[in-house]
């Protein structure tokens, strides 16, 4: 029997699902080997059980929690798909600002004041608790990045089809940089989140002349203390350091603690 695969999305831009749709050459072959039972971007069906559930997006509201638990209960293997699901992504920055302030900034004070007294809109205030999936349920595998790396998605799918464990080495982005023989951005007087960030992205941002912003989340062994010291030595002030950590890692314990 073909394994049943499902895709779900929570708060996200759905770019990860698009990144996967871009693996055109091999995607059709994969689809012959699996049964796709749910895919927001492509079809609409529901199934009682999933062998593999791919989940994109971060968790904000109470109803998100319920829905995620429901999926978890029906899924044998649950994959966090992309930075929103793995580490909360940029939206977790809003965790650090009072909801009313956020709302006022986006929609103006008048709109804020109006919805503040309207019970139908009270759900809006809970969006200030942005969490990755594993703050709510057990996650079996993480496909990191904003967006995900198609090669890692393929590695995971092939491994599962073959009954082997997918393996993503807990290496810093600096490893990818060396494989690409990049000049370290520190040589240009810049600082970088690479030394504390999960690699496997092929250091694409540094290859293109930018720095690593840490979209793939913090490594389990990240030496944050040394990293903050390094940034200070480069004359980055503590407010900016905090901001760098909160850009993609705001929902992680590290981002909260810096």
């Amino acid at each position, binding site marked *: 029997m073909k394994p049943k695969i499902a895709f779900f999305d929570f708060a996200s831009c759905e770019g990860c699902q698009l990144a996967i749709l871009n693996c055109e050459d*091999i995607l059709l*072959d*994969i689809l012959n*080997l699996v049964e796709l039972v749910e895919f927001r971007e492509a079809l609409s069906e529901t199934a009682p059980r999933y062998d593999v559930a791919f989940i994109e997006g971060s968790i904000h509201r109470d109803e998100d929690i319920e829905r995620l638990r429901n999926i978890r209960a029906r899924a044998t293997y649950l994959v966090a798909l992309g930075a929103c699901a793995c580490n909360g992504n940029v939206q977790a920055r809003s965790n650090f600002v009072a909801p009313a302030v956020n709302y006022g900034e986006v929609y103006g004070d008048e709109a804020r004041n109006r919805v503040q007294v309207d019970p139908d809109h009270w759900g809006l205030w809970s969006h200030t608790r942005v969490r990755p999936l594993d703050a709510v349920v057990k996650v079996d595998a993480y496909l990191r990045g904003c967006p995900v790396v198609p090669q890692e998605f393929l*590695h995971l799918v*092939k491994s599962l*089809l*073959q009954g082997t464990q997918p393996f993503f*080495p*807990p*290496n*810093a982005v*600096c*490893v990818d*940089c*060396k*494989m*690409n*023989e*990049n*000049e*370290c951005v*520190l*040589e*240009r007087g810049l600082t*970088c989140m*690479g*030394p*504390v960030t999960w690699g496997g992205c092929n250091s694409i941002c540094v290859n293109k002349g930018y720095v690593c912003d840490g979209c793939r989340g913090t490594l*389990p*062994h*990240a*030496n944050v203390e*040394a*990293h903050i*010291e*390094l940034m200070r030595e480069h004359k980055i002030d503590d407010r900016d350091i905090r901001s760098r950590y909160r850009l993609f890692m705001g929902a992680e314990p590290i981002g909260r603690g810096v």
Partner: protein
Amino acid sequence: MSYYLATQKEIVDWIRRLAAENRLYFPEKHGAASYRFTRVGPGSDIQFDHYTPTVVPPVKLLVPAREELLHFRTDADGKTEVQPSLDTSFRIIAGVRSCDLKGIFLMDLFFREGVPDAYYLARRENTAIIGYACNTPCDERAFCAAVDSLDHTEGADVYITPVKGGDLLVEVKTKLGEKLTDGVDWKPCEDGAARRIGAVTARPEPFGRTFPAALPEISKIVEKNYESPVWDKHVKRCFSCGTCNLVCPTCYCFDVADDLHLDVASGNRTRSWDGCMLPHFAEVGGGHNFRPEPAARQRHRVNRKFTYLPEKFEHGAACVGCGRCGRQCTSHIDIFDIVTDLIQEGAR
């Protein structure tokens, strides 16, 4: 072995000619302050001037960051067909400094030992090397003289030394070197060996950084200090990012993985660089990690360079003093400083 004297221009023209007919790699400026061995053509800007060691050493052309080892396919009867992917294409690496020459020399030993590594040797045996002597240290992190690699020329087919008067002394060292210099119209040089000694003695002294102890003694000190506060001192700033391994000309560890195709009957076996400073390097089946702490990993790395490999191969330190690890470590943790601390610790 024969010597010639040539001008800078003559040598550059010669390299350009070789680059027109062959796959030739030369250190090329890249980024703000770095160099890379890059494939060059007859029109490329070839400069033998001073350069700091490339981001990764030229041995990348013998063991690439990722390579396919073989392709396999199992047919319906269960018979498996294996096709190795040996790279026997000819290449020239020019502008290789002595530290990197020594690195390649050591890699030759490492990869020939035990079951010879067919993939390394296929490339190595089809590689010509043009070396270039340093008359001044490349920067303040170099310590090639302290580990006996400054005068290493073995492994080069042609070795070039800038001599008094601005000319270049060309030493043709092998049959392949003769082929590369076939038809050149440079001045033959009778007193080449003496001129080379002249250039060597005119170098600054000390040349680069030096240790407060001699090499054989250092081996003993590193070994003796298996338990030492020095191992904890430097790793406080370590990210376990593996940069120090991946940029090292004598680090040869790799990881092998099979990438099965969707048909589950065929696939590729690949290998890619690995390094003992990376956290999962010494993790085995079942999840046990023999060196879970950065300090244990660093002690292992330093011992590899100064005790384990020197004992096994009897060719001196397995560190060539290129300074790459300290230069490129984001925290500037420098193996030279670690070893110096161990020496001072031992003297206390």
